[in-house]
């Protein structure tokens, strides 16, 4: 399907299988998934509930061990890495934005943003940090604590944190799931601009076709398998595909 040979993969899954449980409760969450996430691209992952989107992200991000197959970030094969190395990889190469509970309530917005660098004991690149903060538009809220910020602002802080350490790739799991459409749109355009302007690589899981339309590419998952993908999606196009899967799911 990929047409551009120029694109290089920032993360790659090959033949990735993830099985939960055993016996009666055995669930194959990912079934021989092979996919590449390209550098400098904004990829959206879509699919019905329980299709394995979060599982894929967690496996790619080294938060969960795979059952078979491999996941690589850059040139690093995650399989077989010890906890210590994985932790370091997450700290230095990967950014996260979760649906909720992204921030430590005891730290200010700024402290939350620089947390991964503080953990690494690195000094933040001041110019970059200022640029990130300006992009998320939080310059006047830096000394606030999460409880003093709105949900949208909290997600923006989370995005800023993910960007601040210039990771190889950012994983975002339904980052706009808890937000109203306006705050959601702000976050999404911000994510897109960080890809366009800052050259960041982002992979985002979402249920929302509108959200997916901000991405450069949409990958569709169903029952733990990649079933389709769309380049430069529009909301209508995505919705259309979704309906088709639904219909197929019902008739099959």
């Amino acid at each position: 399907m990929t047409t551009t040979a120029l694109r290089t993969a920032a993360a790659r899954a090959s033949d990735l299988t993830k099985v939960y449980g055993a016996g009666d409760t055995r669930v194959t969450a990912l079934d021989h998934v092979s996919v590449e996430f390209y550098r400098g691209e904004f990829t959206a992952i879509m699919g019905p509930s329980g299709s394995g989107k979060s599982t894929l992200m967690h496996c790619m991000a080294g938060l969960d061990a795979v059952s078979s197959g491999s996941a690589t970030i850059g040139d690093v094969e995650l399989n077989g890495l010890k906890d210590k190395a994985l932790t370091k990889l997450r700290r230095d190469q990967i950014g996260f934005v979760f649906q909720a509970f992204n921030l430590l309530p005891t730290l200010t917005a700024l402290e939350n943003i620089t947390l991964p660098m503080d953990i690494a004991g690195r000094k933040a690149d001041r110019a970059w940090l200022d640029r990130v903060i300006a992009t998320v538009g939080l310059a006047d809220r830096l000394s606030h604590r999460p409880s003093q910020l709105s949900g949208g602002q909290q997600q923006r802080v989370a995005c800023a944190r993910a960007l601040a350490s210039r990771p190889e790739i950012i994983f975002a799991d339904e980052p706009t799931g808890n937000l109203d459409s306006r705050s959601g749109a702000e976050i999404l355009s911000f994510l897109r601009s960080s890809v366009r302007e800052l050259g960041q690589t982002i992979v985002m899981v979402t249920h929302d076709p509108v959200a997916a339309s901000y991405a450069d590419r949409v990958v569709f998952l169903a029952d733990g398998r990649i079933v389709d993908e769309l380049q430069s999606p529009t909301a209508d196009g995505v919705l259309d595909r979704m309906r088709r899967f639904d219909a197929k799911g019902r008739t099959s």
Partner: protein
Amino acid sequence: MFKTALRNVLSHKGRLLMTMLAVVLGTAFVAGTLVFSDSVSTALKNSLSHNYDKVSVRVENTAAGNDRRAEDNNSGAKPLTDATLRQIQALPGTASAVGTVGGFAGISDPNGNLIGGRGDTQGSNWSPGADGTDSRYPMAQGAGPTSSTQVAIDQRTAQKNGFKVGDSVRIAANGPVMQLTVSGLFTSDDPKLSSGGSLVLFDTATAQKLYTAPGQYGWIDALAKPGTSQVALEQQVGQVVPHSGNVTLHTGAQLTADAKQQVEDGSSSMKTALLFFAGIALFVGIFLISNTFTMLIAQRTRELALMRALGASRKQVRRSVLFEALVVGFTASVVGLGAGIGIGAGLKAWAGSGGNIPSGGLTVTPSTALITIAVGTVVTALAALFPALRASRVPPVAAMSSNDQPVSQKSLIVRNTIGFVLTGLGVAVVLMGVSQGGSSGRMPVALGAMLVMLGVFVLTPLLSRPIIAATGPLFRRLFGVSGTLAKQNAIRNPRRTAATASALTIGVTLITALTVIGTSITHAITQQVTSNMKADYAVSMQMGFPVSPSLVSDLRTAKGVTASSVIDSQYVKLGDETLSVSGVDANSFDQLIAPDLTSGTTDALKQGQLLIDADQAKSRHLQVGSSVPVSYPNGTQGSLTVGGVYPKSDLLGPAMLSEQALAGHTTAPFNQVVLIRSDGGATSANEQALRDATGLNPLVKVQSQQQMVDQFSSIISMMLTILYALLGMAVLIAILGVVNTLAMSVFERKRELGMLRAVGLDKRGVKRMVRLESVVIAVFGAGMGVAIGSFLAWAANGLLKSDLAGLSTVLPWGRLALFIALGATVGLLAALWPARRAARLDILGAIKTD
């Protein structure tokens, strides 16, 4: 509702574990104390029950024996003589009667040291009947003593020390040491012996010479003929004994009852002391329990709100939480009772293994069980009261709020105001009490101390923020982001941190206060001993006996002695109040004692003038040159001029006069101490010369200044060790509290922890964060304890000053620093398990939104 409560208890088993453990430990302490003291007292009482079988009536001369004190020189006591004994024997109701003399008798080991404890080492007389035996003391080997060179020893003591019939032993009653031959070993059912004492028997004439006077008895025991009641015989005996205040009559039944009462009193005071410490442990437990329930309820806010929304009333919510506490308290108390019985049995076995407690079973009374369970249950319920009230105030809408960790930062203003008022009031009352001093200041200081503690506890949340926050930069520097996060976590919930730290504060406060008081007293005594004294040795007797005049002259002529003086304590009426006046040798005074006179000179002693301490001078309005009327122990009158005033000293007593001036005015000397200066100072040769001069008498204590100081400080440090051990339980429970708080915090913050792990904090970092939080809380608690404890010790010293001259507060910095360091260690240890749990947390499980 109750079903929900029960289910809650079961589902939070893990989280209630520490609470249960705290209640178990506290109640086990209570039950252990009760079981141990009841068992000991029952065993002692049992051993008493046959002791007075052969006594129907006892006539006792309370002024006889060597329990005599300096005051007794003045009394006109009447003796119990052979004549009285014969009269009693001749009474129609008397089957038999024996006269007994007895008192202290120390047996010496080969080096001249006293065998056994200083308490029940007794001597008495062997009083054979017509058949040549003494039914009280059946001979196991050999025969009873029949001459002044023989002695019989109780079998247990003999066996323990390897004495055999025919051996030569050295024994001293109150005078010079005697070299005696063991004539026999006897057995006895005297409870003092089964409690570890020793008894030696002399022939009657020797015993009388030692303890009373020839032909005189200490007490006479009469056995009634069948048909004559104890009371009837008592009446008959009453007719023939001398009528004097010092002669008392008791029936055997009364004696038994008195002895049992004495056992009872002794055991109940031990019980009270131990229960006091158990109470402290339980009090500390309250903090832990209340903290646990507060946290559990915070975690269940939504659940509770849902119940309210579904129609549960506030009362029902409150009751369900209280019921939960009752279940926890009751269960833990039952376990505690079981553990306590085990502890009681263990203690009894341990104490009995030294042979100092008569054997006997374990006594577990129903009241022990009831008290233990009631105390544990009530304490738990009480501790859960506030959390229950708070739970009932959860509004139904909280069920709908999406925010699942309500940071209920209710204002602390009311709390802080109360805290400030209490603390301020407490400090004021303490200061007032200290300024009053002495016994009248005791109440205010105790009350104030309690107010201060309470106030500080109320204020701890307020104090915790700035104090802990101050460590921020240091922590950041040392431990990086883990340090910062730990600091933040420690102050994010001030109430919780405060309650956790306070539990530790209680124990550390008491430990610090006791340590500081102990150190200050040791310091003051050392000062007294070393600053006023030029003498190299102080020679005194065990048991506070006076040093006999013959021993004094033996010491005087010992090799190397250059100067010596007795301190002869005589009760002299000065004006209209009796005072202990120390008679000293005027000529050698300056070589032995150097009091820092505030006015006058020590030369005044040579002129027969009186030296008096500053306190006495003040209260009697005396100064140098004043003259006071005196009445001496032997009844003569006179008047004395004050020749000097010296600072109060326990060693010198309230007033001093020369022996030369006292001569002819006393009935008998009562030499408390002989001060000695030796050629070349305190050397082992000089010490040996003095010991040799006493004939290696086991009763004589020869102590150099250093030994006096050492002896005293070893007593103080032994007392401190015992108190530390007793407070250990309170500290242990406080540690459980730290573990508990941390474990629950880790549970509450598992999302955060998962997030931290996801963004790259490694396991070590997580562990370090939890450990540091624990250390911060523990050090904060210990630090407050050291501060409050030092303040309270200062106040207590202010009160004790009137009893101990020259007492001032001395802070043992090394010890105090050690307490803080131990606090930090405790923090580290308490965090071991919670930190591991935190590090092992499954990242994904933690992040997932329910």
